[in-house]
């Protein structure tokens, strides 16, 4: 944009040079912070990495007293809660996006969009507080009995329901990532060219057919990106999960059992951790950072690819 002007000046005046260097330094600070985090976490986890090695990733031990710690139980917990959350909020989020783009008049679009953004503004700790004291008992009274009577034979719904459980935590997570999924899905669906819609409608399709057979397939990459991004948010969510999931580092089989995620175990156990345990917790933090970083990169690449080349090469 302004680059060509820079080449025109053979000798920049002092003010311009100073400012450009200053701006560059501040820009580089972002890289410095990112690499600083990776570097510092790597160094501070040397104790744990040396003791456990790569096996840390798939060990299910979690016995602090015996000094045997592995990350698998919390990785498992993170993945399960994030997947359930994205399934629930993906359906609702795409529905909201469809409503906002295909159906709603402009004013409704703005109001509903604003309200969904309000959902995102509520602090995580408040979701946790509300989740454990208000939602969990309500679920126990009104939703769980219905699930138990219809699907109680399934192993994932086995056992008695307690307020602090994987089930409740996943639902609260779904609520929390909904704004992210809905917002990106809306942008993506809005970007689908009208020619696709008109073509489908001209063939006599219903609105639903137009949406499911023309719009969604076209927006595939972008919507997938939105879902993955939502999953990344769910994986990194700490306070709400810590208060609701029960913090039991086990490979739970039923959703009504308690569990733990990477973020929740760090928040829960950090206070009294020393030495090897502390190092192990930091290593879990490093793994969490790596996973969410990769998820974010992958998701943004997908969304970026969609906005540039929606059908991977086929431009309409």
């Amino acid at each position, binding site marked *: 944009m302004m680059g060509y002007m820079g080449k025109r000046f053979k000798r920049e005046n002092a*003010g311009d040079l100073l400012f450009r260097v200053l*701006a560059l330094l501040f820009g580089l*600070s972002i890289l410095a912070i990112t690499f*600083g985090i990776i570097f510092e976490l790597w160094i501070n986890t040397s104790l744990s990495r040396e003791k456990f090695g790569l096996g840390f990733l798939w060990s299910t031990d979690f016995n602090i007293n015996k000094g045997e710690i592995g990350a698998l139980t919390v990785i498992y917990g993170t993945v399960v809660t994030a997947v359930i959350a994205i399934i629930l909020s993906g359906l609702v989020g795409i*529905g909201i996006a469809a409503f906002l783009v*295909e159906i709603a008049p402009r004013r409704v679009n703005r109001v509903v969009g604003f309200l969904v953004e309000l959902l995102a503004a509520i602090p995580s*700790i408040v979701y946790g507080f509300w989740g454990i004291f208000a939602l969990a008992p309500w679920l126990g009274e009104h939703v769980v009995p219905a699930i138990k009577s219809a699907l109680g034979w399934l192993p994932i719904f086995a056992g008695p329901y307690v307020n602090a459980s994987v089930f409740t935590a996943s639902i609260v997570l779904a609520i929390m990532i909904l704004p992210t999924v809905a917002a990106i899905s809306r942008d993506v669906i809005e970007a689908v060219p009208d020619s696709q819609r008109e073509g489908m409608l001209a063939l006599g399709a219903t609105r639903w057919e137009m949406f499911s057979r023309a719009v969604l397939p076209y927006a595939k990459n972008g919507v997938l990106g939105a879902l993955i991004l939502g999953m990344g948010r769910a994986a990194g969510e700490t*306070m709400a999960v810590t208060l609701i999931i029960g913090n039991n580092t086990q490979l739970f089989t039923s959703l009504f059992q308690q569990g733990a995620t990477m973020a929740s175990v760090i928040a829960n156990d950090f206070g009294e951790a020393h030495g090897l345990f502390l190092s192990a917790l930091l290593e879990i933090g490093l793994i969490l950072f790596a996973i969410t970083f990769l998820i974010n990169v992958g998701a943004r690449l997908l969304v970026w690819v969609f906005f540039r080349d929606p059908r991977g090469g086929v431009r309409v």
Partner: protein
Amino acid sequence: MTALAAASVVVALVPLAAVLFYVAFKGAAAWNKEFFTGLPTLFGSGGGVANGIVGTLITVALASIIGIPIGVMAGIYLSEYGTGRLGSLIRFVADTMTGIPSIVAGIFIYGLVVLNTGGYSGFAGALSLAILMIPVIARSTEGVVRLVPDSIREASLGLGIPRWKTIVRVVVPSALNGIVTGVLLSVARVAGETAPLLFTAFGSDYFNLNPFKGPMPELPLQVYNAARSAYQGVIQVGWGAALLLVLMVLVANLLARLAFRSPGGGR
């Protein structure tokens, strides 16, 4: 299809209403003089969050002082000088960093500052919050500054005004509304953050007006402690603190959006 889509909207708005009404209802019941002026109690009833309110204000203010200049300048870099490959790299990394778990910022500062300077502090908390603010402010600033039409830049340069002065005195003021919006939204978000503070400010049951020495009480941490308490009285205070937190964040959010009412541009 209309029914399904409309149903999704309802499904989304029901929890929003549920959270807001429940927190408002329970929280307002906890608001009394002692709540706003007293210190937390560990058991029994009563107690307040006065130290947390002050602590949060101090910490967020300090985080803003650190994070806003860095974030805005980084955004200006990305917009005005960031057309090359380095700019793309920084942009991509900044985008990704807007999504990192806040707890990672906390344990990073814990290792960097708390372990090395011997203790929890409000300053460490402010640093961890600033890390969360910087990428978000950078990207939002870039977005708004980019919108300033090139004609304005060219007119200024055409008058012989040096490039740096063009940016500082012409471009940025045009984009100021949008920059302020982005900054306010970012401040609103970090004001409610809890996880990073667990490892940096740590929280306290007493007043602390010095952010550089000793654990700093924080409102979100007090909500967290209340949630884990067995005493109804303490939980009650937690509801009040949760309501206060939600109000602070919502007001900042609304302020940010209203400040954007008259979009910047054209002088």
